[in-house]
């Protein structure tokens, strides 16, 4: 995927084009980030329609407030992910609170636990898709394809030492998803 290697220049140009009111830029923005936005929203809300709604909200927000993004603060991708996360968690909290009041059972601690779990899961997804490719590839081999670290090393043409290092580092990155609050750079790879 081209998305994470994009130079900051692309981010700056995109912001200028959006500010200028270029509809074609909005289309390109959607093509680049829609699956990220929809995927994160779906991970938090576990509902297709709700994820569609968040996707709409995110792009409307960016289109209506192109100046809200400051390229100096970091990549557009992280900014869009943070925005998505915030809106999705807001929506989850609102619907869960409503459900709680309607049902008259369950506790607010339970609600917060649920919100926290969804939030961590979404952050973890983002970390996986944004981590350096060599780390992600090693994790994919070992976890999804059930290869041991020696086979992973052979598959990737790296030493066994390096395979162990990548698996450990990849999991260390992933474990930061548990840290409270939005990480300084969403996903924490830069």
């Amino acid at each position: 995927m081209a998305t994470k290697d994009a130079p900051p220049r692309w981010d700056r140009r995109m912001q200028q084009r959006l500010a200028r009111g270029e509809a074609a830029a909005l289309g390109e923005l959607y093509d680049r980030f829609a699956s990220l936005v929809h995927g994160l929203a779906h991970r938090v809300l576990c509902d297709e329609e709700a994820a569609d709604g968040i996707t709409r909200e995110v792009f409307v927000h960016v289109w209506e407030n192109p100046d809200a993004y400051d390229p100096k603060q970091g990549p557009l991708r992280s900014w869009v992910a943070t925005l998505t996360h915030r809106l999705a968690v807001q929506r989850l909290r609102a619907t869960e609170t409503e459900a709680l009041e309607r049902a008259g059972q369950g506790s607010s601690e339970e609600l917060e636990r649920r919100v926290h779990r969804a939030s961590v899961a979404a952050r973890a997804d983002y970390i996986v898709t944004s981590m350096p490719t060599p780390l992600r590839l090693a994790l994919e081999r070992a976890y999804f394809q059930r290869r041991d670290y020696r086979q992973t090393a052979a598959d990737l043409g790296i030493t066994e030492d390096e395979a162990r290092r990548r698996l450990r580092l990849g999991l260390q990155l992933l474990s930061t998803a548990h840290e409270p609050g939005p990480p300084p750079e969403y996903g924490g790879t830069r």
Partner: protein
Amino acid sequence: MPRTSVEDGGRPLPEPGLVLEHRVLKSLLGAWALTACSPEETAAVEEHLGSCGPCADEARRLREAVGLLHTEETLDLDPALRTRVLEGCLDRRPPRIPVPEWARPYDAETARLDALLQDFGEAEWHAPVRLRWFEADVPASRRTTVAGVIAHLLTVDGLVGVALGLEDPLGDIPSDAPTPAGRTESYWRAAHFPPTRSIRRPWREQSHNLIRTASFAGGTSGDLTVRYGGFELPLRDSMLDRAFECWVHADDIAEAVDYPYEPPAPRHLHQMLDLAARMLPTVLAARRRAGLSGLSAPPRRHLVPAGAPGRSIRLEIEGSGGGEWFVPLDSPGALGSADHEVAHVALDGVEFCRLAAGHVSPEDAAAGQVGDREAIREVLLAAASLSRM
């Protein structure tokens, strides 16, 4: 130094209980959390965790992290969502530089194809695809791969790019002929290896650039001439033609890799059908000049001056996006007219497109017909000859 494995050595296996230094044990924690170590290493790590606090802490954290890995449920985004989201945005803040109406089907179709390509692995990129079209009323075909199809789209879209002043993707490659087929064959031949997935990026960049440049050039740029070598189209029609080709080839690709693929949004399909209906009189005239026409010469009283109503066939396209067109039979200059209808042919929209794409023969196209058989056959043949590589 060659080593004999212990199992082959005939000596007793060593007692389990691998002794590893702390540095190595620590480096194994990730692999251990993923259960990707040998049983001996696993045992050694676990024994170590009982006595080393920092490693035990890290091990717990990494195990928890493994729980966060999910099988990627690739949720295919509904392509209609793109249109809904973008329209919602543009309603809230009208664009200062809109995408011209006639470029929107191309915008939607290229986005749809790009989304299809998104998750393709090597196998899919090299899956064989047979391009099919009609040439002089005979089915023709050419074998390529999924990546080859994208290269084909890149080179032909390049004709539109050239009209808009963009760089020609053919670059220095000399082209056999300035036609879609000539350019494609030259491009394929110039590459030392068959095209790979790396073709996706230049194709997508060019399609984004076309939309962007057309938007800046504004609605009036629709009159610019796009030359296909042999024929030409105004930009507004050319972009519709490219949208149609993009859908047709996306459908070829989807079929090759066994994915479902839907027809375009009804209003985009309608624009494409309208273009085909408008092109038919010119094609009928060209067929007549080439001696391919099966129509008998019209009785003298039917020869009408340009702009006057002439002998027509009623083309009824059913389904969403469909409509009704009166196609003048004897001259592109004549007006289609209900009063001079000699035949009526009815087809489903997608079936008509399959015919115009050369994917179904005029004989096999499921069409309801009333009236002059000869005229109907000729119009169906003309529709098939709209197709090209």
